[in-house]
């Protein structure tokens, strides 16, 4: 791949020359300004505390205390289990839909690289490997943090993996640049799952996600960060989180590229 042209449109990435661009000399592949600006970023200061959606896109009456009604419903129903919160980077729009379709269904795994900077930064912040957290630790004299966080991509079933050729969640997880642990596997097809409506999905008891027992010791008492491409209803991520319960992790959070 060529860092000078946009991964989406193939046009030159005409970045204005500034001191910053000169100094950082970023020649890694990415998107051009025009393509980037068509994505809708979620302002992290004004997002739902639990699912990460952009609260600015919601009617005030569906928000209370920085939490959206959907998440209130999850809290009330007691369906959260050990699932903590989700952070999402972009809202879903037509442009994102187009790009994600090419990424996920047409198999253009290379597109993920265009999201590396943001995804990596967000991931490292959650697991406490960003420079700010480092600095705080140094200032507070905690040089050897004992707290660890394990990155786990949402799995695909064997059939789906064969059909698609790659797991989009794994590709995203690898952007963070920390070890990725394939602790979950998925049994049973995804297709049936998505045809069911929300209630059916909640009510049907059996969990398609299974924890690989080999990892259960590693996960005991740690933080888990689940990675997926999109947070839709949150049901799938919560089911995946439930599969961790046997290993008794400290908490399970998730990071998704999109909320929509």
């Amino acid at each position, binding site marked *: 791949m060529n860092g000078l042209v946009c991964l989406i449109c193939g046009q030159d990435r005409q970045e204005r020359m500034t001191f910053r661009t000169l100094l950082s000399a970023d020649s890694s592949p990415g998107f051009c300004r025009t393509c980037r600006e068509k994505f809708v970023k979620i302002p992290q200061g004004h997002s739902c505390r639990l699912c990460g959606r952009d609260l600015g896109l919601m009617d005030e009456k569906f928000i209370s205390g920085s939490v959206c009604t959907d998440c209130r419903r999850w809290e009330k129903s007691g369906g959260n289990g050990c699932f903590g919160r989700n952070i999402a980077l972009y809202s879903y729009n037509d442009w994102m839909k187009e790009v994600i379709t090419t990424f996920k269904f*047409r*198999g253009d795994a290379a597109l993920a690289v265009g999201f590396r900077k943001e995804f990596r930064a967000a991931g490292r912040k959650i697991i406490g490997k960003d420079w700010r957290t480092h600095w705080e630790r140094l200032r507070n004299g905690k040089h050897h943090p004992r707290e660890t966080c394990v990155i786990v991509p949402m799995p695909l079933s064997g059939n789906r993996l064969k059909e*698609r050729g*790659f797991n989009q969640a794994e590709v995203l997880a690898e952007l963070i640049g920390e070890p990725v642990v394939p602790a979950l596997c998925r049994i049973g097809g995804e297709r049936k799952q998505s045809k069911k409506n929300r209630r059916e999905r909640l009510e049907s008891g059996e969990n398609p996600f299974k924890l690989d027992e080999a990892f259960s010791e590693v996960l005991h008492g740690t933080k888990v960060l689940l990675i997926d491409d999109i947070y839709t209803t949150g049901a799938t991520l919560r089911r995946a989180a439930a599969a961790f319960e046997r290993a008794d992790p400290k908490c399970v959070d998730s990071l998704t590229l999109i909320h929509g």
Partner: protein
Amino acid sequence: MLSSSHSPETTSFSKDLRQFLYGRECPLEEIPFSEQLIRDHVSAGWINLTDGIQTSGDGFFSSITGRKKYLCVRCGNANFAAFASITCGRCGRNCVYCRHCLNMGVIRSCTKLATWIGPAPDRAVPTPEEKLCAWSGNLSPEQTKAAAELDSALSEGDSFLIWAVTGAGKTELLFPAVEHALLRGERVVLSTPRTDVVRELYPRIKAAFPEIPVSALYGGSSERQPEAPLVIATTHQLIRFHRYFDRVIIDEVDAFPYHFDPMLAYAVKKAAKKGASIAYLSATPPADLKNAFLSGKLRGVKISRRYHGFPLPVPRFMWTGNWPQSLRKGVLPKSFIEWVRGKNAADRPLFCFVPSVRLAHLVTELLQKEGFASVAGVHAQDPNRHEKVTAFREGRIRILVTTTILERGVTVPGAEAAVFGADDPVFDERALVQISGRVGRSADRPDGDIVFFHNGKTLEMIRARRHIEQMNREGGF
């Protein structure tokens, strides 16, 4: 009988599988037949499998750079930058894939492309006495001469260039050659880089050959007839074919993206049978074809007169002052507005070509503000593009503001044209000649105004005007 112990798989092939695969190049996993059946056909030598991505990594170049060279066998992409790799969920290894032809389904290192190499299916050959062409119009003397030369070149298996002014009536002069090829039982494809052109040609070709199944292939088309001997397709769609057509006709050979995308030339070459003859049609042929023709290496004919016998309208230049600045202030230049007002009052359909999508939106908006009703803007990504073009053709839209996407293919009787911002670099000689060619196409309205609105004449504008004047001189005017 017990004595004949041959299993049927080794002595006969599946006709359905042949019908599906013949003339196509298809990734193995997309063939809707059982894996066992396909494997039997491979071992019997009826189906050939090729690696989707070919790698050459042993050369000197790669030994010093550590880089391998890749070739996507489906689309011909050999540009290192247009490949990427992933840990493949299919084969479990690190697989390279082609980013260039992704939208037709991904091709990876582990993809096998299947082609039919067994006996070809029989074809229904029409009886020689049959008359296939139902077109009843008359060809002009220039068209008649060109049609005859094309017909004999294609019959003799030679390639041919038709270098014809816009509005020369290129489509009709293909009819005799196409008819004779069909009578010989050959498969003919009429291909063009532009979807709009396919959509315009399809009904005309179907009307001309009512007895023959005709397929129209473009992104999202539904006019697919299996085994149609006559196919009209965007050049892009030819990628799926493999050694299928006996005759290939490429209309608008200089149009974007054919001329800029080597993949499309590769697609044409692959879709054609070995040694198939190719006819190229253009008003502004690219340099390689032009030179081959002028030096006598490529047979061909030049038509400098429109079918109706009237000269090409010659563009006028009109100065607008600093149009980018006017637009920034939200006003259209006065000379432009006055021209549009005059034409609109005379009830002529107007094309208004602009240099960019942004300007298509802006100029449309400003014209609407000026009080013009039925103005619409179109560009390549416009989802309603086809509806708007139809509405313009039917007279429901009177002013169509467009990017160069409509520089060719769309014919509207009586239409006149303006190029707004003709000094912008997107308007090169070829584009300006094509745009000027939108005007005066019909026999009842052979005249019409074509104006280049500019803030300073460019060399390209002058070349375009000279080109048109030269063609008129050659046409005897």
